[in-house]
């Protein structure tokens, strides 16, 4: 499945569609938002990709603990790294959006803070892994922390920001992706184009890195020492 090319072609097609329809397509005229509403195709879709990648990483960590197959550990690590990259991109696109709608790149909004906490947790995952040299131990303890951290992440980014006042859509009776905010023209770009397009790109990047890791692994002839 990884080596097949159809989904990579699909990824490029979807992203080209997202860019063309996203920049040229019609959008509802909203006060304050104006044309920045087009950022939905980038900012929100990147968060979707991040979350999907972290979930895949979690699944591989669980698989590693069940089977002790070292390959699954490499998968979990690389998907977590891919998630971090897309989370950072989501944060950057979000703060550019915030500059033109809320007035500042950073306003310590609960959603922004939640996003930073999520990234910090995954940075801690990388630090933890690097603190150990034994490969089996690193894989096992890393997997345990990955599962624990993911479970603690839920309240951070899905529940708490919804309970407090926020400028960001998605809380206090103002759900994001609501019928009031976007119309069917935008939905036709967002759901079939942007979300799968960015997610496929993230998976593509990650699978390339996984192949590189596996190659480096086999070059070393399955040596049990530290990378």
């Amino acid at each position, binding site marked *: 499945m990884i080596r097949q090319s159809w989904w990579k072609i699909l990824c490029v097609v979807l992203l080209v569609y997202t860019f063309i329809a996203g920049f040229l397509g019609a959008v509802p005229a909203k006060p304050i938002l104006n044309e920045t509403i087009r950022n939905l195709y980038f900012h929100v879709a990147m968060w979707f990709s991040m979350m999907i990648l972290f979930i895949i990483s979690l699944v591989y960590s669980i698989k590693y*603990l069940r089977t002790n197959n070292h390959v699954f550990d490499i998968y979990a690590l690389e998907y977590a790294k891919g998630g971090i990259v897309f989370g950072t991109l989501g944060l950057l696109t979000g703060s550019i959006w915030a500059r033109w709608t809320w007035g500042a790149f950073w306003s310590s909004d609960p959603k922004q803070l939640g996003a930073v*906490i999520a990234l*910090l*947790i995954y*940075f*801690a995952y990388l*630090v*933890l892994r690097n*603190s*150990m040299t034994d490969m089996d*131990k690193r894989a*096992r*303890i890393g*997997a*345990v*922390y990955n*599962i*624990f*951290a993911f*479970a*603690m992440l839920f*309240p*951070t980014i899905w*529940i*708490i920001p919804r*309970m*407090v006042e926020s400028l960001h859509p998605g809380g206090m009776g103002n759900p994001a992706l609501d019928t009031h905010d976007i119309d069917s023209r935008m939905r036709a770009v967002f759901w079939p184009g942007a979300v799968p397009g960015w997610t496929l790109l993230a998976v593509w990047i990650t699978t390339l890195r996984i192949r590189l890791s596996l190659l480096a692994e086999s070059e070393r002839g399955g040596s049990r020492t530290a990378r």
Partner: protein
Amino acid sequence: MAPNFTSIGSFRHILTLFRKDLLLEVRQQYTFYGVLLYVASTIFVLYLSMGEPEGTVWKGLFWMMQLFICVNAVAKSFLQEGKGRLLYFYTIAGPRDFILSKLMFNALLMLLMSLVSMGLFVLMLGDPMPNPFAFVLISCLGGVSLSLVFTFLAAIAARAQQSAALMAILGFPLVIPQLLLLSKISNIAFEEVIQGGLAGMILLLSGLDVMIIALALILFPFLWKD
């Protein structure tokens, strides 16, 4: 692998391990007085530098103090056990019994430390709360919640053979949601007006605690293996 932890034998294991930690503490009196001195001197420095602060600052300082007390008090629980002694526990008890006894002991320790530090805070930094009794309960809940997270992280850090520094790196991002919730809940002690959504937040915090215990029970057997 692990024996069924509802059985009588396993319950006795937990109790014995718990009593061993307690006895060790009572005889050595190291953690309690060590942390007590740590708390007292830190609060004294705070008092020297800011006198009696207003409510929001008081509350912020209190939860920050709790965080550092917790790292210091809980870090010892796994780091003190040498490799040989851990191996001994592994042979006589199951992993779930072991982690449960540690969770219980650290929860008790933090409960005590929360009350002590709350007393010292009121003594030195003044009492800005109109409703101090509510805050006693909240600080107990907070102390126990923090101790649960850090006990599990101490187990991870100990397996990685690292100092308490790694525990702080792993733990600080993870406890931010809890601290945020605690700080919002503790508003009831500082304001006359009862705010809405309070029951939901307390429920969420307790739910988080239950989830942490469940995760610890599920995941600790994997840390345990060598």
